[in-house]
């Protein structure tokens, strides 16, 4: 059976893309909400990393 590396790369690439896009969406939405609620304790200071 041929190895079909193109299909393997497509599957892994798609998974990476989907997970990364979802993560970015969460970060962006969190930043938007934090910005709209400046006094809120969950508003993230600029020094925090995205994984926090």
């Amino acid at each position, binding site marked *: *059976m*041929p*190895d*079909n*590396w193109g*299909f*393997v790369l*497509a*599957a*892994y690439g*798609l*998974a990476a893309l*989907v*997970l990364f896009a*979802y*993560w970015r969406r*969460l970060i962006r*939405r*969190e930043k938007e*909400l*934090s910005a*709209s*609620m400046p006094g*809120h304790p*969950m508003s993230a200071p600029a020094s925090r*990393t995205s*994984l*926090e």
Partner: protein
Amino acid sequence: MTRALGWLAVVGLVAGLVMGFAVAPREVTQGNVQRIMYVHVPSVWVAYVAFAVVFVASIVYLARRAEGADHVAHASAELGVLFTGLTIATGSIWGKPTWGAWWTWDARLTSVAVLFVMYLGYLLLRGMIDEPERAARYAAVLGVVAALNIPLVHFSVYWWRTLHQPPSLMKPGGSSMPRVIVWALLVNFAAFALVYLYFLARRVRLLRLEAEAAA
């Protein structure tokens, strides 16, 4: 805590890639295309876990009307849809070179598609109702009912004649797979489970923030 979980998930994903590409051997029958299983199988396992969490959190919400339980159910349903979508897409990419078709109306594939649509409906239902308490209540009922489809998906390969193979790991009598492949699957499952937990923590926090902003 969330930060540590995020870094653990990154480490887990790297370990999963090492197991899937460097440690696990090329499968004799399928060739390297079998390596797609290290994404496809953990994705569906995590989707099962996510929907089981929706089921439990929905029951807790219906019993106690706890807003936290509703947030967990909502976040977990979203992640379940995400991982089910990934399962369907990666399965389709694997199916083309292996079965010669991107899709077939096989019992397993169809029941997974129904599961996907049911939880998509769950998210749509939440979005359609403006009143948060009513949306949470209706969604909780659907979250309990939709979970009944999970055993149907798992046992579909036994109850109907299917093109999809029966479970290789979670089957009566134990697995007959080589140990290294089992380990590659388990490491990738652990990595995906960490990703799920990390996303769940962030999504629940976001839902809480959204509820406070709307109040």
